[in-house]
């Protein structure tokens, strides 16, 4: 049984970490990008960002004043049992979000869409979002918080099979050019692309590709992995860098996730996880252990399964 107090306490720590500490994979990616940038202004911006991450950690203050919209991804091992059940879990995550908003502090970004009511705690109708996933085996729950920022950088389009890769590339470039001007996408960013599914799942896939995969990992389908590399290079070749200044720093990494779609369509979404790629992860075990990390490790073989039944791979049968 996983203690609900431990979940809330861990969630509050995660809120703090996500807002303040840039994940190492993104930091390493940005350092590499900065070392290759030769646009003077774009270079200046990247150096300022690197100093900013350092200042945030030293002072324990949020790395960006727009602290994004906190949300939660919860992944449960099939053996996990949570004290008080799912209702208690959701209450704990909402409490942690509200407490951290005043504690870190975070910007109280969440308002009613029409009445602009602000509870000053990032909690309201549908906020924070809490999404779920499950894994075979395991007496643990993964708590993942993502504070994605930005009103700009995301778009969706219904393409068709006849649009092909050339059409996918076109829409990808359209998004980078449109949202990259003046740096509205807060690039360089982790670009997530969702392909297929239906309109809503396509958006979910693309957002998760941007927020729940780390810089440097690859889609297990080698042809998709090749596309990821090609798209990263393509995005960095348009002549635009940080803040939309002349340069070549648009894309720290490009991650693509796919889902089976209607036979006549080819949905596509593009998402940009900005210079403040805020995510933090902890695995809370039934025996009270907590392990912190920055890789959500969301897209497992199980999450990407394409078969009716899930057959546990042989090397996992003993531990499961």
């Amino acid at each position, binding site marked *: 049984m996983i203690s609900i107090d431990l979940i809330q306490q861990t969630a509050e720590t995660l809120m703090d970490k996500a807002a303040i500490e840039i994940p190492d994979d993104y930091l390493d990616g940005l350092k590499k990008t900065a070392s290759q940038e*030769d*646009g*003077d*202004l774009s270079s*200046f*911006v990247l150096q*300022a*960002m690197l*100093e*900013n*991450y350092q*200042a*945030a950690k030293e*002072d324990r*203050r*949020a*790395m*960006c*004043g*727009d*602290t994004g919209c906190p949300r939660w991804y919860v992944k449960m091992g099939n053996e996990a049992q949570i004290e008080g059940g799912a209702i208690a879990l959701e209450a704990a995550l909402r409490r942690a979000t509200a407490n951290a908003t*005043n504690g*870190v*502090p*975070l*910007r*109280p970004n969440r*308002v009613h869409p029409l009445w602009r009511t*602000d509870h*000053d705690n990032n909690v309201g109708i549908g906020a924070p979002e809490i999404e779920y996933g499950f894994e075979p085996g395991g007496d643990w729950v993964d708590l993942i918080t993502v504070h994605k920022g930005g*009103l*700009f950088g995301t778009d969706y*389009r219904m*393409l*068709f099979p*006849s*649009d*092909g890769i*050339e059409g996918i*590339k*076109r*829409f990808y*470039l359209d998004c980078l050019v*449109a949202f990259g*001007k*003046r*740096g*509205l996408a*807060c690039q360089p960013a982790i670009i997530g692309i969702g392909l297929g599914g239906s309109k809503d799942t396509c958006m979910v896939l693309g957002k998760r590709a941007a927020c729940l995969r780390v810089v440097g990992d690859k889609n297990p389908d080698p042809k998709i992995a090749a596309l990821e590399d090609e798209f990263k290079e*393509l995005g960095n*070749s*348009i*002549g635009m860098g940080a*803040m*939309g*200044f*002349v340069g070549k720093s648009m894309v720290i990494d490009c991650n693509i996730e796919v889902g089976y779609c209607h036979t006549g369509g080819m949905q596509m979404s593009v998402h940009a996880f*900005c*210079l*403040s790629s805020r995510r933090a992860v902890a695995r809370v075990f039934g025996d009270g252990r907590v392990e912190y990390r920055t890789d959500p490790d969301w897209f497992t073989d199980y999450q990407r399964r394409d078969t009716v039944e899930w057959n546990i791979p042989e090397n996992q049968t003993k531990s499961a």
Partner: protein
Amino acid sequence: MEHSGKPNKIRLSTNPTNEALSKLKIGDIVYLDGVVYTGREGVYMRAIEDGEPIPMDLPAESAANFHCSPAAVQNEDGSFNMGAVTATASFRFSKWIGAWFKMSGAKLILGKGGMSPEDYKKHFVPNGAIYLTTVGYGTGALLGRGVKQVRALHWRKELGLAQAIWVIEVENFGPFIVESDLEGNSLFERENAKIAENLSKAYEGTRPAVLKRFGETDDRKDELI
């Protein structure tokens, strides 16, 4: 690729003289000393559309209007805890900026992403004002370090924490980049134009979508949201 070397770094008062402003070139890096106040759509609507008197002596108190909502809280004892500070995109405030200059006497507009060349020509140049953009746009922690203290918080009840007027004493507050100068030249416009020259190469081998959308453009010089 332009190699004009490292950008100039300049310290500037938040009540700058016209002479100090005239020396600034687009692309210069600026750090501010003095007092800045936040003001965005909530403040503009209340002051301009509702005619509520601004609870500050402007521009004497400050000539620097920051398009910003800080990550900050007011403690129960009335003191403030300001963590990170980051600008919000300014183009959305175009409809109020002319009236705001008349009311506030602002000389510096600080924000994200600049405003349009039309806004600079029509409103900034006649009022002797320039636009400074934040960097990144995520240098919130660095900007937070430049905050000495919160002097006042106005219209907190009426507008909420994010939209209220935060009056902030600052020192070496930056970095900002000079986006528009006294003549209304724009750094973003200049960079957009340079980038647009080479865009067609990146698009080689791509194809427009089979099914078009209303209002769609293929002119990549257009700015779209």
